[in-house]
């Protein structure tokens, strides 16, 4: 039927031929005529703007093509809602926007589309992104015009860098008949503000094009490699009466899965089986393709150690004997093992370069398999570039490797596996000695102690949302195959952690969700706590509170070594104390209970209280006081001597 509709719309067949085709497909003549009537409106939807003869009250949609295409008449706002439903959206994350009144009106009788009011656009967008990442389902973020959009831009940026299919809408506060007069909140080319950080940004040029614009945004966002899309339209379009077609997203969205070129796969397989010491890097495309088991299969087949460069998710079981740990520095050279791989296979890691040296150094032969074709070969010399869905790619690579493995090569792989296992066991033992450090029992706690306590507390399938600044977390043994999951970040616009955790919990209500955030990160985006309280999202939020921006403190010293800052202790940019922020009071203001944790002895009991709250459906927050560590920290850090009190001449 879908092909018939396409043919008819493209004028490939006549009306009679269309009806004839439908009856041959099993429809009655009456049903076929009804479908014809509905589908005919598709052809007219792109014509002139609808005339006032369109009924003023939204009419019930009529189905065509098995319900995939519906002709809709009503307000632009209602058409917007209808298309969101047809695009598979369940949740709308929004902040109050008066010009979207007709959309809100449409929601009243469409309970399948739930609106989640978020009190700030940034954490609201982070919540939507968290939901999308945890559910792999579409959602939309909406705000009030340009002023709301700019608040969400930070998280749009994160979605762009992290390749999250976030769709964002805001109206243009200007109306179509008085645009361009520098009106209230009006800016020119609003959608272009986010153009560099979206895959697609577009304005609907007519009210009846709202559904089409929405569909295109979702298609762009969800076509790999994923990324955010932004759409807008003049505010009056939402109230305008339109006739438009609502089309189910799966009728036009290819959800593209690309099979790799067989020749490339053959070359890669040959390199892998003939390698002296191959190394596999995994990345987020493995998680998105649900291909972790395939990555394990390939690694075991080849006897290949596995690592990961910074990503959102842990894409390989950290307890697996072939896992050699994350790349701790900026390049593979920082790995303790293997030191000299001769073949490196990347499976779905974006390999975001933060320095001049290539992550995979010159020397090893490099196989890069990703759907993110944009960044393949940009920095790293690549022997075999493979553009593919990594699920299919791994299937084909496994088959090709199996076809090449001789008994001698299998023996070689087994011996290599034994070597890697030996290293991974030793590394596990060496990491465990962290508890022997002289500051382990100190008050205030070191950050590693906090992490260790949480790691020993978390459920076996807990989800850890990590936005604890520059602190590296260990000990969770993340496992994408049913174990603990990591939701990290590398976009770098802070304030996403609490919102992300709220969105993750919304998507995964039956898994424990723990948010680990630094105090600096937390204070950028605490408003999502209110959503946790209102929606009864029982998330445990743990703040590593050193009352400072620890990362920038250390990096500034690195950039200006031996400078006056170190000599005098005058750091203007990093100390957040005096007064210390009371995160528990902030949480309580949003309706979330919590407590301050001062020393290691209090930590376990506090976590137990947190669990008790979450069991009852209540979120809980721990404001854990941690030590400022690193160069140049004074016990009482200096603060700039700005004292307005000396300027005051009146007691007002």
């Amino acid at each position, binding site marked *: 039927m879908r092909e018939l509709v396409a043919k008819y719309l493209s004028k490939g067949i006549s009306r009679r031929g269309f009806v004839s085709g439908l009856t041959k497909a099993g429809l009655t003549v009456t049903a076929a005529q009804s479908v014809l009537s509905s589908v005919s409106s598709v052809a007219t939807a792109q014509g002139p703007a609808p005339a006032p003869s369109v009924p003023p009250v939204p009419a019930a949609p009529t189905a065509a093509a098995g319900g995939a295409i519906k002709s809709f008449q009503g307000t632009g706002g209602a058409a917007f809602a209808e298309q969101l439903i047809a695009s598979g959206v369940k949740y709308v994350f929004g902040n109050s926007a008066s010009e979207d009144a007709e959309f809100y009106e449409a929601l009243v009788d469409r309970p399948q589309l739930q609106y989640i009011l978020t009190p700030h656009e940034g954490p609201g967008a982070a919540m939507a992104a968290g939901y999308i990442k945890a559910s792999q389902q579409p959602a939309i973020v909406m705000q009030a015009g340009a002023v709301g959009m700019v608040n969400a831009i930070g998280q749009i940026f994160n979605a762009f860098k992290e390749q999250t299919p976030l769709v964002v809408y805001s109206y243009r506060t200007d109306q179509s008949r008085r645009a361009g007069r520098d009106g209230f909140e009006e800016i020119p080319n609003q959608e272009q503000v986010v153009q560099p950080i979206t895959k697609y940004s577009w304005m609907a040029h007519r009210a009846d094009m709202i559904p089409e614009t929405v569909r295109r945004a979702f298609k762009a966002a969800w076509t790999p490699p994923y990324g955010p899309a932004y759409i807008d339209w003049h505010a009056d379009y939402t109230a305008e009466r339109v006739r438009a077609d609502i089309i189910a997203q799966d009728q036009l969205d290819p959800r593209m899965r690309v099979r790799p070129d067989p020749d490339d796969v053959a070359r890669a397989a040959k390199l892998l089986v003939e390698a002296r010491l191959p190394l596999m890097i995994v990345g987020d495309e493995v998680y998105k393709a649900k291909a972790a088991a395939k990555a394990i299969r390939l690694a075991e087949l080849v006897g290949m150690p596995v690592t990961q460069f910074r990503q959102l998710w842990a894409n390989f079981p950290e307890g697996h004997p072939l896992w050699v740990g994350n790349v*701790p520095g900026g390049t593979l050279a*920082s790995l303790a093992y293997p030191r000299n791989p001769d073949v490196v296979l990347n499976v779905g890691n974006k390999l975001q370069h933060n320095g001049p040296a290539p992550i995979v150094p010159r020397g090893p032969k490099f196989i890069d398999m990703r759907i993110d074709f944009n960044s393949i070969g940009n920095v790293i010399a690549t022997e075999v570039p493979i553009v593919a869905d990594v699920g299919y790619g791994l299937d084909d690579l496994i088959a090709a490797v199996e076809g090449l493995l001789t008994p001698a090569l299998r023996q070689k792989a087994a011996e290599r596996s034994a070597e890697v296992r030996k290293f991974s066991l030793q590394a596990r033992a*060496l990491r465990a000695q962290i508890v022997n450090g002289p500051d382990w029992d100190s008050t205030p706690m070191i950050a590693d102690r906090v992490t260790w306590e949480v790691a020993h507390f978390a459920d076996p399938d807990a989800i850890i949302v990590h936005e604890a600044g520059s602190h590296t977390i260990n000990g969770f043994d993340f496992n994408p195959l049913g174990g603990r999951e990591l939701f990290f970040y590398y976009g*770098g616009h802070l304030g996403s952690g609490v919102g992300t955790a709220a969105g993750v919990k919304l998507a995964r209500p039956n898994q424990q969700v723990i948010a680990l955030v630094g105090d600096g990160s937390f204070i950028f985006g605490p408003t999502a706590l209110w959503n946790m309280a209102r929606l009864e999202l029982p998330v445990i939020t743990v703040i590593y509170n050193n009352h400072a921006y620890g*990362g920038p403190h250390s*990096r500034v010293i*690195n950039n200006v070594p*031996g400078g006056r800052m170190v000599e005098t202790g005058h750091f203007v940019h990093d100390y957040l104390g005096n007064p210390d922020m009371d995160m528990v009071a902030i949480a309580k203001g949003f309706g979330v209970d919590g407590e301050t944790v001062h020393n290691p002895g209090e930590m376990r009991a506090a976590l137990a209280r947190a669990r008790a709250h979450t069991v009852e459906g209540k979120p809980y927050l721990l404001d854990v006081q941690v030590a400022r560590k690193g*160069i140049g920290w004074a016990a009482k850090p200096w603060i700039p001597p700005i004292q307005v009190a000396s300027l005051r001449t009146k007691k007002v």
Partner: protein
Amino acid sequence: MRDRRMRIPALACVGMMWLIAPAQAQQSAPTASNPGRDLVASKCFQCHTDAMFRDGRQDRRGWEATIYRMVGRGGLWTPEEIKLMADYLGEALGPDAKPALPAK
């Protein structure tokens, strides 16, 4: 704890990559081979600068605690290696050692 610019955090690297040779250049006489110094040189060079080391002058306990923090960031050292590195750093880069040279 803030990481807004998303550069690789200096303290998130494998180890402390102080360039020991420039530090020693300030000493009046060459030093004999020292296993702790050799370990620091071999384990820590990828990420950290010598200046960071010299700006971080502290006693042996402080250095030991710093090395253990690096374990939390992926550093893999045996207890004996940690002891040797802490011994060396506490002596060579204690609280009274010369500060880092100002950046040019």
